[in-house]
């Protein structure tokens, strides 16, 4: 990190290594002059938007980037203000953050933890970003969160659903607005019990990496609590494209429900394959065979096409929500870009606003001050109803949407319909819940 703690001793040694007698020491800016990493000194403040621009999640990343650009526009007083008027906190004035004009830099995570860190580092070291946000997978979120903790900047997670992000890998400088695996399971289970009964035999196909594990565990434990039985849980490689050999044996196992703990391309392919095998036309144990996708996104639904019809899943937010915040955001985004925003776009927009508001309330860009302002912050009007940023793990607690693939979509964006809005209480868990155990927030880091 470029602008970090240089103790006097370190300073001398650094000078020696960097080339003794290179220059008169006084023109080295002593970085301890800054109170914290990348303290904005001029009239502007720089945010770092780190989203996947290449690789399979590039479209999701592009939507995140649109949301960020919109948020920046609104923060600087442009456009219709989006959710700023509906936001319960009225600190933001439309004159930037703390009067400083908001600028931004972008980077490409490539959905690889290494590349994401490299890109985040360059934003911190080169461009002086004060906050990093974005991303479309939990691996990236966890990796970048740890980096931001080290560097002493705030990380506002984008789309990351694994329990670990605010569980065993949580960090004091990192905050997540998006919901998680546990919440998906907790929100889905009652709806599933309602729709499909409490006597079901479930077969899990799980993406063989961290997010898959936590999602499988969450859905398993909450459906088993409802009385379901888990027949089998099979791990599938991340690089798998044809899932036929995993789906074919499902019926033989006597299962009557298939849970696809897959995301992105994996989910599109496994769902397409499952529907192809005609699983949904079958009757097992005297019941119609059902498929469930714990985490839905609109882009995935689009990729799977007609196959999503009637399939349950959960999502963080959907543009068809009718509260004032959502409506304002959809109007603002839709007017600018011509189509409704995705849940990834929503969470990224909200995270940016929440960060700006926290700075405003704290009266400082210092990460520890911002963190303090965010911890335990309760707000409303950002599309998910009343929301709490819990201090213990920096996770937002809010309503979770249970959705279903729409039977008769009117447009290519109208693919999901909301079945139920599960209230926040039902998806709230204790900070020391076993699915989130291990790891500690640590203390916030201001960096230099």
């Amino acid at each position, binding site marked *: 990190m470029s602008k970090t703690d240089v103790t006097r001793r370190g300073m001398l040694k650094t000078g020696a290594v960097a080339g003794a007698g290179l220059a008169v020491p006084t023109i080295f800016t002593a970085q301890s002059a800054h109170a914290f990493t990348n303290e904005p000194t001029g009239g502007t403040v720089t945010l770092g938007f780190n989203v996947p621009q290449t690789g399979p999640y590039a479209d999701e990343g592009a939507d995140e980037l649109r949301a960020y650009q919109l948020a920046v526009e609104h923060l600087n007083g442009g456009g219709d203000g989006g959710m700023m008027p509906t936001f319960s906190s009225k600190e933001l004035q439309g004159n930037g953050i703390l009067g400083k004009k908001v600028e931004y830099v972008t980077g490409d995570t490539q959905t690889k933890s290494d590349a994401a860190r490299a890109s985040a580092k360059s934003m911190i070291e080169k461009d002086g970003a004060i906050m990093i946000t974005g991303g479309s997978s939990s691996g990236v979120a966890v990796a970048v969160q740890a980096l931001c903790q080290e560097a002493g900047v705030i990380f506002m997670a984008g789309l990351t659903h694994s329990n670990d992000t605010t569980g065993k890998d949580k960090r004091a400088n990192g905050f997540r607005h998006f919901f998680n695996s546990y919440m998906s399971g907790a929100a889905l289970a009652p709806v599933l019990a309602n729709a499909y009964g409490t006597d079901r035999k479930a077969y899990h196909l799980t993406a063989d990496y961290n997010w898959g594990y936590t999602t499988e565990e969450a859905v398993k434990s909450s459906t088993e609590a409802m009385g379901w039985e888990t027949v089998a849980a099979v791990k599938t490689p991340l690089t798998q494209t*044809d899932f036929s050999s995993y789906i074919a044996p499902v019926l033989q196992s006597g299962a009557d429900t298939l849970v696809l703990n897959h995301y992105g391309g994996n989910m599109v392919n496994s769902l397409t394959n499952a529907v192809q095998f005609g699983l949904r036309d079958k009757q097992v144990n005297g019941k119609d065979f059902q498929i469930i996708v714990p985490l839905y996104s609109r882009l995935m639904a689009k990729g799977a096409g007609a196959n999503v019809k009637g399939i349950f899943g959960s999502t963080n937010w959907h543009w068809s929500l009718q509260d004032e915040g959502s409506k304002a955001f959809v109007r603002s985004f839709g007017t600018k870009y011509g189509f409704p925003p995705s849940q990834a776009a929503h969470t990224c927009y909200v995270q940016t606003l929440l960060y700006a508001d926290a700075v405003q309330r704290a009266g400082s860009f210092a990460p520890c001050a911002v963190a303090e302002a965010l911890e335990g912050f309760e707000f409303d009007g950002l599309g998910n109803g009343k929301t709490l940023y819990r201090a213990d793990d920096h996770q937002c607690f809010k309503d979770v949407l249970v959705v279903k693939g729409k039977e008769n979509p009117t447009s290519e964006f109208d693919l999901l319909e909301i079945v139920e809005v599960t209230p926040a209480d039902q998806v709230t868990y204790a900070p020391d819940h076993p699915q989130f155990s291990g790891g500690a927030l640590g203390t916030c880091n201001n960096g230099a």
Partner: protein
Amino acid sequence: MDAIILQILNGLDKGSAYALIALGLTLIFGTLGVVNFAHGALFMIGAFCAVTLSRILTLSHTIIDDTQKDFLGNPLKVEVPYVHDIFGVATGDAIIDWAVPLSLLFAIPIMIAVGVIMERGLIKHFYKRPHADQILVTFGLAIVLQEVIKYFYGANPIPTPAPDAFKGSFDFGAALGFDPNLIIYPYWRIIYFGFAAVIIGGVFAFLQFTTFGMVVRAGMADRETVGLLGINIDRRFTIMFGVAAAVAGLAGVMYTPINSPNYHMGMDFLVLSFVVVVVGGMGSLPGAVLAGFLLGILESFASMREVIDIIPGINQVIIYLVAIVILLTRPRGLMGRKGVMED
């Protein structure tokens, strides 16, 4: 037992895709001696021929429907495909429904053209260059092709379903006297297998029974001698490149209902298809086909949960494990010739 039959079916189906890609790769390698890393991209372009045709067929004009609202509260714009206007709604829908099979016809000229342009424009300058240069330039080409597709079609997969008539699955179990639902297999995958068999058979017959094929086979064995006979082998090789591109492209077209096509599907298959070719033996067409099916079946067995329970992670590595074992026990793959690609 039923589980095993099912996985053999799966293996044959996966194997058909592997075999088709490996077949084209081997044709190119065997005839031209070029290691073509852009071959996966040809498969991808084939798939996007299907996407493009279905886009053409669904070209629409919009009419305003006042009874419905769009997401911003404005009157809904309903898209009406031109084929509805031309052929009427029922026929129009049927045409759209049959977009993928129709794409086969659409893809053949396009893929041959792509292949010929690629060979004449780029590959032919690399016949005498080291394999490393061929790999690098075709790898660069593969990146360029996939990024161009991404630019026009986005990174998200695009659903391209099979005609309704082929939806659902056939119950082999019932036909063989097992309990129903035990061995079911989707109609489209059965078609894919049959299609692969026809194409593979066609390529072999073409090489075996036509004069053109005989010259090409002679050229594969000894390029210089055939050239000395005054036969214009170069032109024939160009055509072979076109044929190989068409084989890969058609495999891609037919693959679209199985997995929604996306811009990186070629890269996903690239490493695998090279493993198939090498396991089969560089330059051996029967070897490529055999290895394709073999690896498909082994991969299917390795993904059975009974197997994964015994050896965790075996489904992740089976292909590579097989490649290592075969290359160590059979130095030139299953059916490879001596001296090919060993320097």
